[in-house]
């Protein structure tokens, strides 16, 4: 018994590693983020050929990456929620509530630290309310966050009294620098690559989130809950607590995106983030997440956000009327879900 055991194990491991090598390529070819990345690269090549003077420039890179960063940041929280099989429609409205609240604080003369603490606090409270009602009271996520969409937007209008607030008080410079500033990198050929703070924040948060999903129990539990919530519960995973935390994370990323955008725009308004829930959910779904839960990743939301903003950028460069933009976003959402259905049929 004892002598045959090591042999048994070594055979099993060889078998397993053989299997793994096969699936790395397979996994890449059946991975949606991979094909979205291919699409992003293709769009970049085509647009660069069409517009060699304006598209493949460092300035355009700076602008485009900054523009999709707020959606990318929120895609992180949305991915956590969608992994559990939920949805959060309130992110755009949470942005508005955070934006108007911090603008009023700054206007009243409070420092940037207070504004940031308050902004994140507002996000935390919205997330706690969403998460509590969904995880503990067991209300459907769609309905709860639809309610929050309306409530937070309305509160934003009440707080700002319908004004756009430009007066940011004594800490205006710092607050605007955090959201609107950038980092200059001198490339070997002497030209300067600028990276916006928003984009840098997106990169850092995406890396942390990818790590959390892969290497922490909490990250694995998100997949387990989305895969089979009942099984997760029976194995002792604190399902309700993890779900609540996912909604809190989602609202916190919305608050972060709002703080950065409000600083970048230099104004607080209850109109901020209107319709952004569409873009965030689109980014996550295009990046390969399954709305039924259990599938998706940190890179998916990032590349999905990049794709939908690149489409906009390219459409403008190709002279297509801007009104067509949302048409194409919608098309890509349906196409992404269709693609996933086809892949799902193959796997099943």
């Amino acid at each position: 018994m004892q002598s045959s055991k090591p042999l048994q194990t070594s055979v099993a491991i060889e078998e397993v590693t053989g299997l793994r090598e096969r699936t790395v390529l397979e996994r890449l070819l059946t991975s949606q983020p991979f094909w979205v990345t291919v699409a992003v690269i293709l769009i970049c090549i085509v647009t660069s050929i069409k517009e060699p003077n304006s598209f493949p420039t460092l300035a355009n890179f700076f602008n485009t990456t900054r523009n999709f960063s707020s959606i990318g940041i929120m895609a992180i929280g949305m991915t956590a929620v969608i992994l559990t099989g939920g949805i959060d429609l309130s992110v755009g409205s949470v942005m508005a509530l955070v934006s108007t609240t911090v603008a009023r604080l700054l206007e009243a003369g409070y420092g940037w630290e207070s504004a940031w603490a308050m902004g994140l606090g507002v996000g935390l409270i919205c997330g706690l309310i969403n998460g509590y009602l969904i995880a503990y009271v067991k209300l459907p996520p769609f309905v709860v966050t639809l309610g929050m969409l309306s409530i937070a937007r309305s509160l934003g209008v009440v707080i700002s009294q319908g004004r756009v607030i430009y007066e940011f008080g004594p800490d205006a410079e710092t607050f605007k620098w955090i959201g609107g500033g950038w980092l200059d990198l001198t490339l070997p050929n002497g030209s300067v690559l600028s990276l916006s703070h928003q984009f840098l924040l997106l990169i850092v948060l995406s890396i942390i989130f990818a790590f959390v999903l892969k290497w922490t129990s909490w990250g694995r539990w998100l997949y387990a809950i989305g895969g089979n919530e009942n099984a997760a519960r029976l194995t002792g995973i604190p399902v309700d607590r993890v779900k609540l935390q996912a909604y809190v994370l989602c609202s916190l990323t919305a608050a972060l995106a709002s703080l950065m955008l409000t600083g970048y725009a230099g104004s607080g308004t209850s109109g901020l983030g209107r319709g952004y829930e569409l873009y965030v959910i689109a980014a996550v779904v295009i990046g390969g997440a399954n709305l039924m839960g259990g599938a998706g990743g940190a890179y998916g939301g990032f590349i999905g956000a990049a794709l939908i903003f690149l489409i906009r950028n390219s459409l403008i460069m190709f002279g297509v009327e801007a009104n067509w933009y949302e048409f194409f976003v919608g098309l890509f959402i349906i196409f992404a879900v269709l693609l996933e259905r086809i892949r799902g049929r193959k796997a099943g």
Partner: protein
Amino acid sequence: MASLELVGIAKHFGAIEALRGVDLRLESGEVLGLMGDNGAGKSTLVKIIAGNFPPSAGEIRIDGRPVQFHKPVDARREGIEIVYQDLALCDNMTAAENVFLGRELKRNWGFLKIVDYRAMYDRAAELFGELKSETRPRDLVRQMSGGQRQAVAIARTRLSEPDFVLMDEPTAAISVRQVAEVLDLIRRVRDAGHAVILISHRMPDVFAVCSRVAVLRRGTKVADKRIEDTSPEEVTGLITGAIASA
């Protein structure tokens, strides 16, 4: 030698009496077949032993000591593991991840504790080896056969070295060839010194692996016999009520 004892277990849901005072005793090394028609009270009894809900009356004793379960974790702490009928597996995760679901192995990475995939794959491969199952730790559960899924669910119960393993209809939804595989799994669990309760309505399976069979009918235990002292015909009669009790 561990023992699990149920004394006068009753459960009613409103006016419906699911269990009316059931006594049952189980010792390590035994495989007890628990049989009964739909609605006889099998699942209610399993859920009480699993800690899903408490009995309305009666007592559970482990090694003679009364215990109370408020949630499934309490039962697990007392050495009871359940293999649920739907197996409670996550299709989107690997075999090894499912085995360690909720109790992931960790290793130190700087000041952080991170999931130790290598250790989980190695340990899961060992467990599948012990069960003589061909299940591969890195395969997704989605791609597995019914028998392999059973092996994952059973391997999971062995992590905690439980004294008692409850298996709810493990052969209900799988092919004939896989049934033989699962029955072998049950024998290995028994040989490892665990006590097994096999809830099943498949007569051949019960007579193939059980050392004792208990029959429930309308919330009452109508028979509790050594397998060699009874026959499939008698048990069928007990289940349907053609034989009142034995």
